[in-house]
């Protein structure tokens, strides 16, 4: 029984770790999604879901967009849609572009070093 409890705890820790990992990538993922041009909230969410494994809740993304705007990494503008309601589009500021570049460089370096370290673990399965 004790074993079972421990195994359950391990699973939970693994899930938690995965959640933290995804959450840690969210800012970079949003900046990257906006690299090619402006998008509005729902488009950003769809882009994150289709182009990445990052399935995130709307309740997390919208406040984060607002924070990135306060930090002047993003700017926003309202555009009237065909459907008749306005949409709030986000675009990278020069600072946001710079930040995305820096974060992407760190990510690439980090993941390359992790890949090397993980190669034997992956082979072992």
């Amino acid at each position, binding site marked *: 029984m004790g074993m079972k409890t421990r195994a359950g705890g391990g699973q939970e820790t693994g899930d938690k770790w995965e959640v933290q990992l995804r959450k840690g990538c969210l800012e970079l993922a949003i900046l990257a999604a906006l690299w090619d041009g402006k998008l509005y909230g729902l488009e950003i969410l769809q882009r994150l879901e289709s182009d990445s494994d*990052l399935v995130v809740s709307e309740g997390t993304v*919208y406040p984060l967009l*607002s*924070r990135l705007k*306060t930090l002047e990494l993003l700017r926003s503008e309202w555009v009237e849609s065909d*459907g008749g*309601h306005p949409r709030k589009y986000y675009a990278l500021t020069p600072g946001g572009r710079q930040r995305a570049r820096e974060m992407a460089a760190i990510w690439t370096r980090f993941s390359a070093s992790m890949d090397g370290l993980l190669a034997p673990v992956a082979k072992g399965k």
Partner: protein
Amino acid sequence: MTTSGDAQQKVEAYLDRLRQRLRGMNGGDVREIVEELRSHITEKAAMGGEVNAASVDATIARLGAPEELASQYLTDDLLARAQVSRSPLRILEGLFRWASLSVAGFFSLMGTLLGYFLGTTFALSALLKTIHPHTAGLWSIPDGAGDYEFSLRMGFGSAPVGGREMLGWWIVPAGLFVGCGLMVLTSRFALWCVREYRRSHALPRRSP
């Protein structure tokens, strides 16, 4: 795209609750948040065709309860602003808003208030020593039962009977150092609370 009256009412009720919870934030920011979410709900709920009560409910459920969502906005706002300025007033302002929404916010505010209060007391007694050289400072005062108690005094009024001042002029550098140190540590504590809260709440989740 058609929207039933019932669905429209649900949207407005949700946005009203959110607007109330965001009270205290800049009015323009609140309007932007509410309009952006209105646009989101309207468009997302219409993806299956008609906007009805059920599709609005499902969309709103994915956004989360208004209290939770408002907490996200307020803590994110606090973090972003703290990155620009770590003024205790700014941090307290954000914590006051957050405290009205969550227990975590309430306790963070209490701890932060205590820290700032202690820091201010040390710094003030150091500064007032220059005005009240004979009465301000750190005093040890006999409590009558053979023990001593320590008192950080601002120097208003007369010196305590039987008391002994312990640091003399050293209270000026020591008080300023401890006071400023406490202020900085308290700000760090407040931001740590906010980050921990953000880390444990509103986690990314898989689509149902």
